[in-house]
């Protein structure tokens, strides 16, 4: 009887481990990339990834089988990130949207064939420069850009990850890309790519 009980314990444990390995582990690269972009540092990203998987493993019994495991893991990582990295930032996020909008309108070109809107002038930008522009976005905006433009998730999936309505995802993406446009334009202008293109 005891051998049977022991075998039962062991088989349950093994089954859970196998499930975890099958369902959660394959998403590690996606989570690592998200962690890198959120923290902007490979050591912090490594710590965040370890914490996320440890929590996921501990709470594996709370994961509803058949639901989106990747979304569940992203939620754990995002919450861990907020709890760990936001502890010192106690004030709620406040963004002056009007200021962002005004700045964008000021640098926005006056016609659609303007060099400002050509991909060529940004082609010399490095991955690091683009990554640093993304990292400088406020957290809520950075998250949607990473999930949509890098990870390729739909609005509905992102809404599920971050617990906001789809309309909020859309509006954050709209604003995030406007902010990125202003930042990347400034990078390209500082490096002289814009003026070179204008003189062509």
């Amino acid at each position: 009887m005891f051998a049977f009980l022991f075998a039962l314990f062991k088989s349950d444990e093994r089954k859970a481990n196998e499930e975890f390995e099958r369902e959660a582990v394959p998403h590690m690269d996606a989570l690592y990339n998200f962690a890198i972009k959120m923290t902007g540092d490979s050591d912090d990203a490594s710590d965040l990834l370890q914490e996320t998987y440890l929590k996921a493993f501990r709470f594996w019994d709370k994961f509803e089988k058949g639901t989106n495991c990747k979304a569940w893991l992203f939620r754990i990582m995002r919450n861990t990130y907020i709890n760990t990295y936001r502890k010192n930032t106690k004030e709620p996020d406040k963004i002056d949207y009007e200021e962002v909008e005004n700045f964008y309108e000021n640098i926005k070109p006056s016609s659609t064939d303007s060099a400002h809107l050509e991909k060529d002038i940004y082609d010399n930008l490095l991955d690091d420069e683009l990554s640093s522009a993304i990292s400088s976005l406020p957290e809520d905006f950075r998250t949607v850009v990473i999930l949509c433009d890098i990870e390729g998730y739909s609005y509905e999936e992102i809404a599920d990850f971050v617990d906001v309505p789809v309309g909020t995802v859309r509006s954050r993406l709209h604003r995030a890309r406007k902010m990125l446009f202003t930042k990347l334009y400034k990078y390209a202008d500082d490096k002289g790519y814009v003026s070179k293109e204008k003189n062509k």
Partner: protein
Amino acid sequence: MIEFRKDMITALVDNEINDPMVKQDVLSRIESDTSLAIDYKAQLLIKNLVKEKVEWKKTPDKVKAKVFKKINSNAKVNTSTSILSDLFERPAFSFATAFVVILALVLILLNRPEPTVEKDFAVEQFGDDNMFIQAKNNFNSIIEGKLAPQMTSENSGEIVKFFDDNGVKYSTSVPEKKNWKLLGAVVSEDKGEKFAHHVYVSKDGKLAYLFQVDESYLNNREIIKLSDDLIKYLDDGNCYTSKSEKSITLFTKIQNNICAIVSNADQKEVEKTFCSL
């Protein structure tokens, strides 16, 4: 006439407009309005730049190894079955020895106290400005019909907008829950600050009231309080439940908001629904 939302341009860029009429409307506006056409090109440019230029990194092997090591060490702490299996595998131990050891362990397991070693944080909560006390009082007022929602809606987006429009300064989250319907919301005011509350109803008519507060308010303790132990417990990713005669009070964190959920539904159902990570 309904005002055109510029973020529909973003939805077009991301191919997220399913209704062909809406899509056509957005396209027509872009064709006829240069400013919108520029916005469209700018959004498309940024999307393509990010997509093409940001490098996708594979998890380095040493990081993967660290993750597995951490999980394995946790698994070893949490279970003794691997040690038990070793007993059977080592030839130095006879089956009889292993049997005696297992018998002893099983007896210990069978006689151990209930695993409810979780600290009872409820006893630390007192005072009118305590979030735990306020949540319970508010729930009782709802049940007694003394507190009604200021707005009713089943739509989480509308409730979030209601919070924003009525002066709640922090980001709020109104998750939609399976088997529960949103009922409505209330914005309360305390010392000039606004706080967000909303209510769910289950299929069998039970209520769940959710009161969410940005952690910063609880840390500076000027308007609303909660014991430090409970805040730390929630910060560590835990969920705390306290059962009283007529209701369940549950504390958890959604993003950087501490949430109190009070409900007259079954404890397991409340925990399953609201204790999410």
